[in-house]
């Protein structure tokens, strides 16, 4: 019948909404892979470095969207997972001589564990109270790290250049870390899609709309929120480990900057919160715009002003984000744009 035509063809192997077009799954992946492959096509190192920043932002935005977009909890402390994962990963590589792969897993695990431990407590708060507490958690973890001698205290940790030899030298290391980031970005998209189209995700959306009503309907809100928080924390932890490994040093004030959290929120809102494709487009659009402005001969001196004006215009006139706007304007796109 009509439904069978519209049915999601991979529904047997991947969770999907029954009336969702297959393109809703392929489109986000295609965007990420398209961006990721761009440096391979041009063969230019500078494009690889630009896309590293873009993909890093995509992972941050897509993971934040799980707690912000799907669950409706605005977190200003998302960078705490990035910083903690960065520290744990860096410590294992530089001080314990472990491989990058172990560092990545440990970074993700540490971030997930932190989310699980604090999530049980702070997710009881709602609205502005939760938002404020997330800033406090970020500051508290930064202060703790700054006072831990094993993490170098205020001096942070440094890595010898020779460590990269084990990965085929610095050039090979930069390429390898990029490839890993591509993998993490793809995982982030799959995770986001899986959550969005699952029963668990439906529960999160219900919590976002009305938490009390959701609980009446049988959703165990504290458990669902905590798991959403943990899922949103793991990938930023891994990306932190990757970023600081290629940077060769880590310091407390570089690992937990509040502005990364705020930028991630902006990217999610720009693309459209609560959607799979939105945060990807928001992150890519925002970072490509910033990369262009910062290196543009004429605009680089006023790049913050120009990007501020553009953001203002978008937020003023398209408050639901790009995907939200398209879905409202073109009803037919709703099956494709998830």
């Amino acid at each position: 019948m009509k439904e069978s035509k519209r049915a999601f063809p991979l529904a047997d192997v991947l969770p999907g909404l029954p009336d969702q077009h297959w393109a809703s799954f392929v489109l986000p992946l295609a965007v990420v892979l398209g961006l990721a492959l761009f440096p391979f096509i041009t063969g230019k190192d500078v494009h690889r470095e630009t896309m590293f920043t873009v993909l890093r932002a995509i992972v941050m935005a897509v993971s934040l969207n799980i707690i912000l977009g799907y669950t409706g909890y605005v977190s200003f402390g998302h960078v705490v997972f990035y910083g903690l994962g960065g520290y744990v990963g860096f410590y294992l590589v530089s001080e314990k001589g472990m491989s990058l792969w172990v560092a990545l897993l440990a970074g993700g695990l540490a971030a997930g564990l932190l989310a699980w431990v604090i999530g049980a407590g702070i997710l009881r708060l709602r609205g502005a109270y939760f938002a404020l507490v997330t800033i406090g958690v970020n500051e508290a973890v930064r202060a703790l790290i700054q006072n831990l001698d094993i993490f170098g205290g205020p001096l942070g940790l440094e890595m010898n250049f020779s460590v990269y030899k084990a990965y085929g030298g610095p050039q090979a290391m930069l390429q390898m870390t990029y490839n890993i980031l591509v993998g993490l970005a793809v995982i982030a998209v799959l995770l986001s899609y899986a959550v969005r189209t699952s029963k668990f995700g439906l529960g999160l959306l219900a919590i976002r709309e009305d938490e009390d009503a959701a609980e009446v309907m049988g959703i165990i809100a504290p458990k669902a929120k905590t798991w959403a928080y943990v899922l949103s924390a793991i990938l930023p932890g891994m990306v932190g480990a990757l970023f600081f490994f290629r940077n060769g040093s880590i310091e407390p004030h570089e690992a937990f900057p509040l502005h990364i959290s705020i930028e991630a929120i902006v990217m999610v809102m720009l693309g459209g919160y609560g959607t799979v494709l939105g945060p990807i487009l928001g992150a890519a659009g925002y970072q490509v715009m910033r990369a262009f402005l910062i290196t543009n001969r004429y605009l680089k001196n006023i790049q913050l002003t120009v990007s501020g004006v553009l953001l203002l215009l978008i937020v003023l006139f398209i408050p639901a984000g790009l995907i939200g706007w398209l879905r409202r304007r073109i009803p037919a796109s709703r099956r494709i744009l998830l």
Partner: protein
Amino acid sequence: MTGRKMLALLLLVLALGLVLGACGGEQATQAPAAEQPKEEVTKAPEQPKEESTQEAAEAGKEIVLTIGFTESQTGKYNVSSSRQVKGLKLWIEQTNANGGIKLSDGTVVKFKTVSYDDESSKERVQELYTRLITEDNADFLISPYSSGLTAAAAVISEQYGKIMITTGAASDSIYKKGYTRVYQIYTPASRYLTGAVDIIKHVDPNLKKVAFVYEDSKFATSVVEAAKDYAAKQGLEIVLFEGYAPDTTDFGPFINKIVDKGAEAVLGGGHFQDGSTFARQLHEKQVPLKFVALLVAPPEPDFAELGEAAVGIVGPSQWEPQAKYTPEAAKEMGIEWCGPTNEEFVKAYEDAYNEEPSYHSAGGYAAGLVLGKAIMMADSVDPDAVKEALDNMDILTFFGHIKFDTSEEAHGLQIGHEMVYVQWQKDGDTLKKEVVWPLEGATAEILYPKP
């Protein structure tokens, strides 16, 4: 409602048009000016030294080298970074105006810069330095301001085999990571306060009890840890070693501890705000100290606003306008003098920018000066030859003595340059900043004990 939407659309189109128009404009105007010299410059290093200089002589040509760097045009390093860049640009303007650097084969070397805003953050430093090297074909690099950003940039510069002169990057650790083409202009953090210990030993060999009270930041901690070890070796007793949070405004608890422990001298501080507050509260509580040396704040002209509280406070500085490094001093040291005198630099800087140069400005100028001198010594723009010249460099400039460590463990670390120490002293009713250490560069005798 429709009108509003139309307006929004119009504004967006205008904004995008502005962006795209600027993009097109850049390509159209930049190409003829920038690409021609770049080709010449980038070819030269690839060829053997003799061939490239021979070719240049035949053509009697002028080559324009590109110096790439990032500047913190926004963010917390903005003031220091922009002064550093002003210093560097002054050197470039002067060098180009004087006809460039002439090599023995008749080649004339001139310079131009390419730079981007790093926003005082590590986030894009590696991306921007990759762009400078691979897209803008920078021949030589200057570091960003601060040790943290430089550490990230050094990974990229070393990977591409580019020489990077660092200024504003005092941390020792950057130069102990196995790099071979990164060269430091500043005195490293480990020697920032060791001179203050030398001053104590010089003016009062009987002083024994020293307290370290410092900002809990990477820079200040690395400085005081090195100074503490040095002080202990010099036979001083460390009665207190305690850090404070960067936003501390009440130093009462620390001052009480200083008094309880019977400290005679205090070393520490961190940055301007906390350092000046600490100095003011030490004065208000009439702590009986003979000697106080604080980081960063005392060399700043604004420190004088503390009035009486500033009198006698000593502070380390990479350079001061009054510092007395002269060609005669170079002769006495048995090394070569290079570049303008202190007076010439200060005058040129003030004429160009209508402001007094800070040590960041002098550091930026010195970075250019050292690079130019290395090219002269190498008599080539070949990176390997310039690296060899930097390794062998031993010169005195208006900024001070420049010599680099060439050992495998700390290649590029600055070992010649020394901090100068300033002290605020009373000159009638006004306050005056005097250089009191090292003695050969002093403009006044040290005021001891501190009033």
